[in-house]
């Protein structure tokens, strides 16, 4: 079927705008994947620094509360970072859901028998772990950032008049239910990260005969470091090694 001449002209002129053409490339499957990879790497970077910052629990009450006060003393930077993170999360989830729907459509009728030969557990559960991660992050924000679960404890101050983040965390992880939820959250985060990081390097086209092992190992390694760091905090408090 030949489209009419007028339509062809319009399409051609539309396509000649460089910006439109550029976004056209971004909305291809590969372009979307590149954006998902970049936003994911940004979020992974945040998760790593979040873990490193939290490790100050082991330096005691003063250190952690001073760190929290330091962050809250820069409201512009803090809120810019929060808005940027939210935008990155939105982009990451939006494009992923769009691709996931396209991927489902790419195989309307599945196999009666199907065996994976190589795919890791993490790679097969990215949509599930991603969705669970959203739930966990919402819970975490409600619990420790907004403090809606325990408002009275959340607004306590330490002897220096700073918000007692340390006391709040120690109080939280003495509750076995919260410990269980946070450990489960870490398991989900670890699974998601272990596939995601190496996968995003491949999506960005990073490949080299001598560095392939590094690229493929980077995901599981970073995931392990993040999970070990975070779990150490949770368990140290749960077992009373760190106490108020």
């Amino acid at each position, binding site marked *: 079927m030949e489209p009419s001449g007028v339509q062809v002209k319009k399409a051609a002129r539309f396509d000649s705008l460089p910006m439109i053409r550029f976004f056209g490339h971004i909305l291809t499957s590969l372009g979307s994947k590149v954006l998902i990879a970049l936003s994911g790497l940004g979020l992974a970077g945040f998760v790593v620094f979040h873990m490193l910052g939290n490790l100050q629990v082991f330096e005691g009450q003063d250190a952690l509360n001073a760190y929290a006060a330091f962050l809250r003393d820069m409201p512009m930077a803090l809120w810019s970072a929060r808005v940027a993170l939210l935008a990155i999360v939105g982009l990451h989830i939006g494009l992923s859901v769009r691709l996931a729907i396209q991927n489902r459509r790419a195989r309307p009728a599945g*196999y009666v028998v199907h065996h994976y*030969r190589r795919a890791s557990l993490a790679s097969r559960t990215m949509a599930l772990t991603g969705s669970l991660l959203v739930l966990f992050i919402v819970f975490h924000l409600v619990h420790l950032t907004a403090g809606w679960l325990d408002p009275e404890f959340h607004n306590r101050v330490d002897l220096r008049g700073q918000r007692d983040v340390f006391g709040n965390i120690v109080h939280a992880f003495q509750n076995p239910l919260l410990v269980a939820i946070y450990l489960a959250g870490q398991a989900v985060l670890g699974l998601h990260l272990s596939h995601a990081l190496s996968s995003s390097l491949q999506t960005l086209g990073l490949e080299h005969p001598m560095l392939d092992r590094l690229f493929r190992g980077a995901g599981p390694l970073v995931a392990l470091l993040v999970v070990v760091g975070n779990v150490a905090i949770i368990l140290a408090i749960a077992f009373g090694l760190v106490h108020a």
Partner: protein
Amino acid sequence: MTFTLKIWRQNGPADKGRLVTYQVRDISPSMSFIEMLDVVNQQLTLKGEEPLAFEYDCREGICGSCSLVIDGVPHGPDRGTVCQLYMRRFPDGATITIEPWRAKAFPIIKDLVVDRSAFDRIMQAGGYISVNTGGAVDGNVLLIGKDQAETAMDAASCISCGACVAACKNASAMLFVAAKVSHLALLPQGQPERTKRAKAMVAAMDREGFGSCGNQYECEAVCPKSISVRFIAKLNREFLRATIEEPSPLAEQPADPHDESH
């Protein structure tokens, strides 16, 4: 040898399709999987039933026609084509499930035969090079380094069988497109269309309804030609390069006097 076969039967594109169980006896261990299906078809013909439709051609693993998912793995348990798979690979008395490639872009024509012309349309979009007509160019006029030629040949060994699509959770054609784009991008003859090719073939791949790559590398695990997923990274690079290196005129182009819109 004796086998119980569960084979996907589907009368046509509109039919719903179902697995039908067949018993086969007196199969020689030296028979290839395709020859075993020939025996099934002889039995079906003698009984007056409709024989199985399945694809094969060269029977030596180079044409890419044979396309069966055997026990949930494209081309079966070994990393080769179905025609090079022998019945001795299966234990006597085994139950074997045989299905067609499954992807929206590969609609089933009948039984185990799917329409793979989506791959042809992707090739038409950019899997070509421009050559001048006239006398043949002297050999070795264009020097190509040995390692470069070998890497290009690794990619060029793709036989377009579509096992990568069949194995992929998302029915993605990335390994196929990656092999074709890489093959031509690695050679000097492929340079004139290099930028256009990466974008055109990726767009064609999306248009055909293939999914996107989840980097699970199931494709590499079933590829009968052992095409490496490192070519997928190469395709990603080619695509990024093409997006950034958008060729645009540096000077304002004069308006086309024959354009009807002004």
